[in-house]
């Protein structure tokens, strides 16, 4: 096809892939190192190596034998999923109101929502603890789901509001003429057009909930209700001061893999041009 061989284009391609490589290496290297560490044991841990020298899955075996790690994994999955679903549900509807319906005090409301995210988490710990005990959900997954809305909800509401604002008005109007109620507009017209935003906020919130430690530690007191980060913190070596690096790394690898899988599944939805072809202007 191309009559001349385009060196500039080639250079650009090479540079681009080099950049991709750098980004990937920087992102993944510590994780790689964690995998490396998880395959080590004993004094080997203190030795710097770049390639696996000996491979032992002892640490992984340990992870699953200590405490109730599989159970904790399930807890995390449950808590994070429900948190995200709930947050997205509340946020999608709220952001429709905040981005598409004009009413007085909208800016103020947005600021109020944001204000919730301005308080240091440790400072709300005591009060939240009281509320949770009052509601009688202490030491249940619901305590965490409830507590996590404090940081997932403002975030999802703001992000989705921003994205929903940019959707073409004409499409909404067409739906109105077609007799769609706001609920139908949200679920059948807007949500499909906001996949990138939904998936992104969903993923980010999911991971935030998945990785949360402080609340999880405070609001659960049994191995059966605890989540993964707490479980990791509970992994311990033989004695008080000994940090069981190998096991911790193994556990981290174990908890990160599902997230990576999740990203791989959902990132397909982060595609561009969803609104293409709808309107002209």
């Amino acid at each position, binding site marked *: 096809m191309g009559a001349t061989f385009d060196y500039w284009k080639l250079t650009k391609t090479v540079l681009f892939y080099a950049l991709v490589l750098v980004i990937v290496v920087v992102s993944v290297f510590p994780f790689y190192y964690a995998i490396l560490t998880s395959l080590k044991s004993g004094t080997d841990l203190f030795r710097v190596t770049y390639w696996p020298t000996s491979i032992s899955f002892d640490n992984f075996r340990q992870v699953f034998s200590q405490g109730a790690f599989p159970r904790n994994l399930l807890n995390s999955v449950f808590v994070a999923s429900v948190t995200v679903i709930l947050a997205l549900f509340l946020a999608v509807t709220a952001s429709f109101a905040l981005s598409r319906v004009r009413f007085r005090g909208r800016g103020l409301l947005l600021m109020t929502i944001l204000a919730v995210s301005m308080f240091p988490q440790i400072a709300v710990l005591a009060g939240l603890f009281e509320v949770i005990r009052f509601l009688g959900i202490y030491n249940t997954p619901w305590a965490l789901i409830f507590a996590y809305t404090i940081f997932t909800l403002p975030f999802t509401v703001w992000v989705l509001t921003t994205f929903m604002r940019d959707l073409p008005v*004409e*499409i909404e109007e067409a739906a*109105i003429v*077609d*007799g769609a109620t706001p609920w139908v507009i949200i679920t059948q017209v807007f949500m499909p057009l906001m996949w990138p935003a939904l998936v992104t906020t969903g993923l980010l919130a999911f991971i935030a909930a998945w990785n949360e430690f402080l609340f999880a530690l405070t609001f659960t007191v049994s191995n059966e209700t605890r989540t993964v980060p707490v479980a990791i913190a509970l992994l311990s070596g033989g004695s008080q001061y000994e940090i069981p690096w190998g096991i911790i790394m193994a556990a981290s690898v174990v908890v990160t893999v599902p997230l990576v899988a999740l990203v791989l599944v959902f990132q397909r939805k982060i595609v561009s041009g969803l*609104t293409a072809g*709808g309107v002209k202007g």
Partner: protein
Amino acid sequence: MASIELRNIRKSFGAVNVIKGVDLEVRKGEFMVFVGPSGCGKSTLLRLISGLEDITSGEMLFDGKVVNALTPSKRGIAMVFQSYALYPHMTVYENMAFGLKLEKGNSKEAIRERVEKAADMLQIRQYLDRLPKQLSGGQRQRVAIGRAITRDPKVFLFDEPLSNLDAALRVATRIEIAKLHEGMHDVTMIYVTHDQVEAMTLADRICVLRDGLVEQVGTPMELYEKPDSIFVAGFIGSPKMNFLTGEKAEAFKCATLGVRGEHMLVKPDGIWEGEVIHTENLGADTYVYLEMGQEEPIVVRLEGAMQHPSGSKLRVSPMEDRVHRFDEAGKPIR
């Protein structure tokens, strides 16, 4: 099923007054065409009728009932948007079926049937599985029309629905719309267009808008033959009516004399002489542009493909009984 009445309707966007007091009655089952210069407020008026836009002041009545506050779906309208406004994530089929699915009591088969019927009519049957972005401009426009006609509304609102279609398809679709209208005597249609042919052939009545106000409402022939103002006279008809002022108008005892290009006769003893400055050959007709000392060149429509070399002189006369005389204020002298 619906007669529509607008009473002193106004609409402003912030400080911009777009509709400045429109009174209009669209009769039940009537085919009303809105024409007017770009930006005069046609789409806005349509949107006001649809209920998508809030009325700033005035009253809107459907069948004698005030509907100022009624939602679009309760008004029983279907609308074709100027900018298509297709659902980008839905296939053509889904786009057209969406409204039907939302109405209760439509079986799947019934929906499919109706969609397919509309698709056939608009020649988009083979695109039913495509997304809007995979369609050409004209195809998108047809989907937008299809979406409106699959539904069964009391009022159709069309905003320049044929502007991106080719001539053949346009004629075909125009005829379909006319048929649609004939087939449903109750259905009121309001139709915005820039196309003279569409306006003249489809309309029961035409409403000429100008700058947010109604300039004249009447049947196509009324507007063509008895325009109420220079503006309407100039706006209806293609090519545009020629306006002559000064001496030439005075000879006809008026401030401005209007003569349509088709009402000019080339005669050796024509009363006016002009220099050919440009010829446009359309096959069936030729438009000859004459310089006659007027602000704009005077257009004369001649049948068939004629050759009048630029620079040659031509004598023409208006058909005496077809001239339009206007006073200083632009009002017709009859």
